[in-house]
């Protein structure tokens, strides 16, 4: 089974990415909740890259590769958009979001709480996000 997928930067492709991740995790006998959490974390990163890093430019692409080793699933997501500046990231204050009616800004908080390790790297114009999840 091919372990990577490349899609252009359209939000409509998020469903394709989720289905791809789910298909790869099926053999791991995860619970519904575990499966949904992992699919969600990958979806959140891809949505951020498509919308914020690449401004939904359909001529640009993101790639996702999945691998598993010693009970740890690793997701490698790459793009050539604007690099994410983790140093500028702040955990959201949900009560403040409710108070001001803010729509965005909670996706990465979900990713950080679901995944065991989250890394962002940039080399030249290539950005890579690595997600690790222990499943055994």
């Amino acid at each position: 089974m091919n372990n990577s997928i490349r899609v252009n930067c359209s939000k409509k492709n998020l469903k394709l990415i989720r289905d791809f991740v789910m298909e790869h995790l099926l053999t791991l006998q995860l619970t519904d909740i575990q499966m949904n959490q992992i699919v969600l974390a990958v979806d959140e990163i891809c949505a951020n890259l498509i919308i914020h890093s690449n401004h939904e430019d359909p001529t640009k692409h993101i790639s996702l590769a999945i691998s598993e080793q010693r009970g740890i699933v690793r997701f490698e997501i790459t793009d050539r958009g604007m690099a994410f500046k983790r140093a500028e990231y702040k955990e959201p204050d949900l009560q403040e979001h409710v108070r001001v009616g803010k729509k965005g800004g909670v996706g990465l908080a979900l990713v950080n709480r679901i995944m065991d390790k989250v890394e962002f790297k940039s080399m030249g114009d290539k950005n890579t996000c690595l997600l690790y999840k222990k499943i055994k």
Partner: protein
Amino acid sequence: MKITNEIKDSTIIITLDGELDASSSVILDEELSNPEIMKFSKILVNCENLHYISSAGLGVFISHLQRFEDAQIKLIFFNMQDKVRNVFEILGLDLLMTIVSNYEEAMTIADE
């Protein structure tokens, strides 16, 4: 994402069918932004067929919550699948929003 509405007196029941992600949550936002919705005192959201929610879907509810509270409109979720409820719980949103098991419970709370 398919959204259907049912009106019972001062209550609107919004039924969500499908997946709420960064692409589809726009439809829900349009629905909740409709000024007509402010005529109701209770908004019940049937989540039985909501199979997936991402931060974009959560964000739509977060962004309207204060507006509904200010207008004393009760927003109540019911029939939520465990995996979807879990996403609310990861962020602690289950403490800021009302999520109940079923329609009967939702109606009871709405009438309190």
